[in-house]
């Protein structure tokens, strides 16, 4: 997977878009697909640590971890998208997301970089994507020939049935 190299782009378009608002996203890979997450809601990124299993919950909830005294759930995003369980790789990471006062983590294959997307280039999806997780996608942007599906945190909380 090639990295998204935005440096050149940004420099070129800097004059044009200087005044325009940008939104920052953290991009990551799940099942070789690029996803984005609003940077403000990303709390932390960690290397995988041992997970404590919770009995009788959905399969995609891997369990909980102890994050400096707080117990937060870790969700296997790939499994939630109805695929198989994620294989642990050297590049796998936990991304801890914060919404209001709640924190939860998602298990992803690889964390890429933070990108700045001008608002004009964000397409808010109105039509249903033919995906099981279509509702999760808040917006889509195209960066360097990569299509990045930006996930909405609010939708995630419902989708992952947290609380």
């Amino acid at each position: 997977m090639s990295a998204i190299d935005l440096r050149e782009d940004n420099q070129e378009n800097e004059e044009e878009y200087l005044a325009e608002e940008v939104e920052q996203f953290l991009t990551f890979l799940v099942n070789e697909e690029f996803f984005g997450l609003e940077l403000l809601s990303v709390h932390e990124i960690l290397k995988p640590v041992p997970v404590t299993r919770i009995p009788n919950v959905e399969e995609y909830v891997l369990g909980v971890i102890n994050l400096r005294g707080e117990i937060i759930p870790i969700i296997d995003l790939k499994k939630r998208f109805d695929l198989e369980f994620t294989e642990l790789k050297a590049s796998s990471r936990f991304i801890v997301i914060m919404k209001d006062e709640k924190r939860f983590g998602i298990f992803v294959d690889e964390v890429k970089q933070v990108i700045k997307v001008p608002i004009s280039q964000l397409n808010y999806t109105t039509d249903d994507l033919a995906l099981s997780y279509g509702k999760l996608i808040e917006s889509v942007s195209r960066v360097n020939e990569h299509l990045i599906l930006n996930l909405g945190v609010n939708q995630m909380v419902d989708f992952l049935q947290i609380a």
Partner: protein
Amino acid sequence: MAGILGEYTELFLEESEDQIEELNSNLLLLENDHHNQDIINDIFRAAHSLKSSAAFVGLYHLSDLSHKMENLLQKIREGTLEVNTRLVNLLFKCFDLIKNSINKVSDGIKVDEPYSDMIALLDEYEKNPDVSDNKATKNKPSVKESNSKEKSDNNSTSQKSGTKNKTNPDALVISLEDVHELHQEITADPNLNLYKIRIILKADTPMKGLRFTLILQNLKTNGIVFKSKPTEDELESGYTGTSLYFVFLTKKREAEIHESANIDMVETIHVNRLKLPELPNKKKEEVKEEKPTEKSQESKTTPSSNAQNSLETSKLHNVGENEDKAISDSRIVLKSIKVSSDKLDQLMNNVGELVITNSGFQKIYDDLIALFGEDTLFNDLKLKVDQINRISKDLQTGIMNIRMVPIGSVFNRFTRLVRDLSLETNKKVNLLLKGENTELDKKVIDAIGEPLIHLIRNSIDHGIEQPNERIKRGKDEYGTVELNAYQGGSNIMVEIRDDGKGLNRAKILEKAIANGLVTKEESSSLSDNDVYQFIFAAGFSTADKVTDISGRGVGMNVVNKLIQEFKGKIIINSQEGIGTSFTLSFPQALAIIPSILVIMEEEVYAFPLSEVSETIKVNLEQITTLEGHEIINLRGEVLPIYRLNHIIGLADRKDLTELPVVIVNYKSRKLGFIVDDLIGKHETVIKSLAKNYKNVPGLTGATIMGDGTIILVLDIPGLIELASSDDLVETSDLKFKEMFRTSSVRSLETSDSEKLLKTSHATNLFNEKLFEMRSKDKSKTKRDRHRNESQNGRTAAGARRELEKTNKELIEKAETRQQDFVAMEETAQLKLENSNSDSKISLTSNVSLEEVKSEVIQESQPAKENQDELYTHLESKVSSEDEEHKRKASEIIKGFIEQKNERIKAVQGNQASEVSELLNQDQLRKLESIMNTGMMNAAMVLSQLVGKEVELFVPDISLTDKEGLARDIRYSDEKFFGMKIRMNGDLNGNLLMMFSEENGKNVAKELLRSKEESNGNTLSDDSISVLGEISNIVCSGVINSLSNKSKTEILPSVPEFITGSFIEVLDIVKPERTKFLSMHTEFNQEGNNLLGLLLFLPDFDELVKLIAKIK
């Protein structure tokens, strides 16, 4: 965040809610004490502030309403408007409207409609107050004793209508200071009598004021006129009223006073002894009829007008006390501050962390002791650690107490409710409040209000009978509803009791059967309490009709939900015709829960200790099945038993025969949970899972151990519900997989194996993968490091050293000796004869060895100039094979040498003294060499047999006794299977081959290539014979070498199987208590895993002779 009224919304809400409550309670007080100026002032003040704060946040209409109210109140204050039922009701209506608005504001809705209707009512009242006109009423001091005997004809509630001839807005008010002064006067001169006097002039008397003055003048000559109404000034300025009240201190008697006062135109003279109340502090505990103004008061309140109370309380008494209370209350108020409960939660969290971290200290202390032994410094540490533990526990309790709020605040709301209800139902009800000071956690307090309301409603609506019916039954006309809160053990109990007609068991049962909640047959076995529990079913009601208040069957459901939410219980007691009581009990401390930890595979779970009755072990045979459920018999009691692994989704372990069981209490029954193992007790600070996730059925929450492990805390009712539901994961679908041990938590009986069987859950697989990756990383970094080092100094020694080091790591030998080997390799001198034999030694091709992960250290072989003669004879036996075998051999040999070298030094150091007395150096050396040979032989053979890599230690020669030997040998408190082989012939003695229990079994199993599981501690016959064979072979190896070398004849006997702990086995072999010479060597497999040990116990004298024969 600004509220809908702007930034002051929250402040407004806080203040106004308080004020409304105050207004309500004060008005109730005022009802019973119409002329209490202080109460009136309080009410006025509250209304006034309400008016201004409402205006401040923009609720102008509300402000207007308050303003109108104020007007009325002002008139009451002046005395121009009399307090009566109508007025009170009107005011209450006002308060309700205001409260409504405030509530809407807190919900985010701004209500801004003009309260025109209400205002109109208020206006009208102002213009046309009630019939009884104050001006003409008789004045009387409000100080009365006889007041208490009065009974109202109205409802039970405290109405004082104008028809009563007592209270009077013009009555004389005696304040607290007055009481004090009077007391002083009386104590100064005990002969003084205190009277209250009322003089009424004829209606048409001219110059009333003057006359009254005259009377007072007369009386003054005989005593002191303490206070009068109207005052003397008023009298002089032309008073036109017909009554005069005053308090008079005199030595004279009543008759004399009458005389003095009786002048022309006097119609009536009332002279009564006035009993001063005792100074208020003493009277706090007494039952009063007044309702306390502040929340923290203790009192019995009756909304009725004192009728029932045989305890007489004078108005003065009340006034004085209320004042005092008001003063002290205001003091109390100042001592407290409002704290946002978020801050408290934060604080609680921090203290929880503190407790957890402290337990980490304990663990470190234990580790230190284990590593370094006892030390005074450690004792000091322990002292401090314990101290900190204590302090933080105190801190935690203290903070939890902050969250505890007296239940009085909730109780006080009910007086109003009861008053309204009894008005509605036309029943006469007294409300008794007890235990207002009992404290409950704020969360519970907040939640308990509504269910209590329902219960009280039910009591009044269904329980208490109509007054006439009560009389018919011989009960008091006034029904009593009693609210009581107290502590019962570790629970807080809240009780609602009424003396009404009780629950109709038959009717409830009938309804229950009709609703299908129970069958007729089952119903016969139900206890009373069980029957009553039906009323909690949703929609359950035996009411024939639905009233506004109750009857829909909703209330009880609400109550039940609350009970469950806070893990409380409810007990119902009732007797037909006598009354009913509902007792709610809540567990007290919601935060620290001592618990019993259990381990399931590697997952740790906690049972709250308060639920646990005991823990036992059962055998598989003791579990039987009854109607599809598993049960056991516990001391005659039959308990249902659940398998915890089923409920939490772990596969069944089939190898356990003895199962630990945790017995818990559940709804007055007992039941058991089968677990894998018990760990111990633990103080858990529960963290809710819902904070970041959600509530999971079966779990109350989670907690974190000192070392960071997450423990899940079980919820017994939840577990049982899960167990009986059908959507549990089918445990037969779950598979086991051998995975690495990742947890650091050990139960009391776990063996220290590296791997164990775990269910193939995604999580377990994940953790294992993670563990693997991490260890690979670790070894990789080490290897890299070494590689870097080696690039720097490529000397032969360096190379050797580095390669050897690497080698060891890869085989995971963590022994310190091996590191020492490096040093020793350079400096050690073998005492044995050296020869530079060809280092390429390998074993026979029969060897089926596991692949060694290490790289060959070919270079190190020539470095072994220190090969000794030992190996020469081996050479002959052995032919070279492929590289692998060579490696293997070199491993074994290397291991052997290094340890031998070290041990020799060590051995000679320690035991030289003793042994050298018996054998000289020369002899010793010879002995050693033989033994080495023998042991080497044995090791090789053993490894061939078991097919695993076997390490052995240098034989330890010592003169020792049994205990000494036990001490010296590692693992001596483990259980062993032993094979004893006697030596006969030129050397007599014993050879003892001992296998560690676990590995012995495994070895046997593997050799037998059988899948048969060994049951418990016993070996099958086959296994025994296999082990016997092994022992035979090994021992023969030793014996052979010995007899060869010494050119003597030693024959082994048939092996004898013995089992037990090390000492026991040793006992059998050498029961004498004397010292003996022993040589032993240990065989290890794969690092630290003790396989077995070989003990050579010869007859000493013969041994010496033998040695002599060795060249």
